[in-house]
């Protein structure tokens, strides 16, 4: 059984000439549990839109996204919010940490919306787990640091830890090393892959950089997945 299945997914946006521009057209795509896959694509080719469709951030014009047996496209907005909180970890190019919160709080906040923090018994383990995650990414001495007090590489490591906070089924990484120097980029990729493996999460990473894609065994071309007839199975 696949962790993620995509069928006949279409998404277009209005174009300046008044027509519609088809950005995503994926006939079939699937990802097995705990699989790790890097997908290369040019900037502006629709990779981010594809990830947004998978995460339920955007609704497709047509088609299905099935995550862990749940038909994402049939869920209401609040159900999709909930699904993102519990089953999807998202890593951004620009980290997207909340500036008013410390490293530890950024991770705890991510746990809040999954509903786990509603139970006091879970709360203790949540905080412990958040600390463990920061320890795992080498930031146990930066728990109370605000993002502005961290280096760029450290910020991305907090973002990686946050993506894994709810032990998601699927981690989506959108150009996760785009703002990092080569050394930090290599570290971050290795860490991301290890964290996903340790937590049993599937990973789908998109990037336009060859060296990022080359860090993964399973590599795909977005152009092959998008607008091609046939199935892509990872």
């Amino acid at each position: 059984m696949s962790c993620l299945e995509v069928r006949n997914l279409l998404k277009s946006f209005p174009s300046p000439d008044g027509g519609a521009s088809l950005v995503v057209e994926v006939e079939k795509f699937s990802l097995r549990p705990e699989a790790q896959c890097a997908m290369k694509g040019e900037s502006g080719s629709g990779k981010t839109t594809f990830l947004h469709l998978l995460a339920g951030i955007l609704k497709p014009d047509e088609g299905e996204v099935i995550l862990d047996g749940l038909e994402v496209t049939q869920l209401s907005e609040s159900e999709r919010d909930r699904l993102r909180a519990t089953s999807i970890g998202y890593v951004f190019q620009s980290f997207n940490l909340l500036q008013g919160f410390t490293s530890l709080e950024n991770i705890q906040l991510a746990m809040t919306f999954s509903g786990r923090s509603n139970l006091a018994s879970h709360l203790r383990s949540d905080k412990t787990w958040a600390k463990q995650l920061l320890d795992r990414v080498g930031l146990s001495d930066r728990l109370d640091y605000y993002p502005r007090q961290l280096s760029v590489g450290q910020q991305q490591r907090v973002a990686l830890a946050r993506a894994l906070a709810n032990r998601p089924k699927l981690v989506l990484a959108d150009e996760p090393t785009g703002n990092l120097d080569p050394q930090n980029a290599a570290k971050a990729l290795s860490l991301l892959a290890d964290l996903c493996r340790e937590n049993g999460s599937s990973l789908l990473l998109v990037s336009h950089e060859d060296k990022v894609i080359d860090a993964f065994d399973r590599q795909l071309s977005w152009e092959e997945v998008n607008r091609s007839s046939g199935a892509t199975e990872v």
Partner: protein
Amino acid sequence: MFESRIMVIFLLAWRGLRQYAFSSFVAAFTISMAGGLFLSTWKIKEEAQKAFVNSSGGFDAVLGARGSKLQLVLNGLFHLEASPGNLTWEQYELIRDTRGVKEAYPIAVGDNYRGFRLVGTLPTLFTEHQWKQGRNYEVRQGGRIFTDNAKEALVGDFAARKLGLTVGSQFHPYHGLDFDETKRHEDLYVVVGLLEPTGTPADKVIWIPIKGIQQMEGHDPAAAQSVSAVLLSLRGAAGFQLDMRYNKRGNQATLAWPVAATLASFFERLSWFEEILSLVAFLVAFIGALIIFATLRTVMNEKKREFAILRCLGASRMVVTFVVLSQSLLLAVFGALGSLLAYGGIGFLAARLIREQTGVVIEHLSIDLAYHFFLPVVLAIGLVSGLAPALQAYRSSLSDNLSPRS
């Protein structure tokens, strides 16, 4: 702090405001000023009126020369303004002996010592009269009440402190109600007693025997047989009868009765001032609401991305909306608390000014209005100001604000 969704919402709201501390401060400060002005406008006048009525020294009426009742009350009981004229000693004796008049004390004014008014009266005012129910004047230990005919003075607590007068101090009175050092009388008075504080205008007066004023060196000899006013305590329906005798049928004197009604008319005259202050307060409140709105709009524009991140982490539209509403609510709460502080500050200054000018003590400024009406109104203003930005947060597109399309 991550125990419940509500706490997280307030935490997000609080941290958001902290990030925009200056704008948030300005918004809360403006609300504070508006609220402080509102409360002051409504309450200080009300409290002052109460305090004035309670400070009328235990008298029901004032009889004086033909003229304004208010001037009589202000001059006779509050030792403010000038006397409208004089009554003869016979007029005093007539009312003193009228049935229904419980007490009648003549007073004479016209001199001061360094701006503090000298009031001539009978020593019995300090032995027999109750300035408040059950309360006679008390002379501080080591002092005594002046003797009739002697050049002796009994000094009110506030005046004694301000002038540094103690028992045994000597002074020359000055002519007129305002201090002019060229108008010194040759008479030399000695302080024989200091009054315990009463919180009434009596505290800022230097009391001397009535004959002292009447016969002060340099005064018109005609003044020796006249009084400025007569302070009256009445029994039963005497007020109606005297009102009829002096105000309706007679034309020799004016009776200011009842004192509370005269004072009410005085405060009514101040209503234009109250209206202007109210208008100012409304304008400030309106500006405060606009500032909250503008602050939250600015915060919203800069926070769209942060809200999108929250949404991406699984926060619902409602959570984000409530964060914005909570911010406006927090600003309003700070504004409301600030209002009470501003009200306290304005009230303190006003009470001090009123005390220095009139001797009337406003003992406390109640905030009952705040509990029943003011706080909900301020919170409502805050919430209303936050509605549009909250709606903007509710409607904002998650995908558009999260990251650019690639």
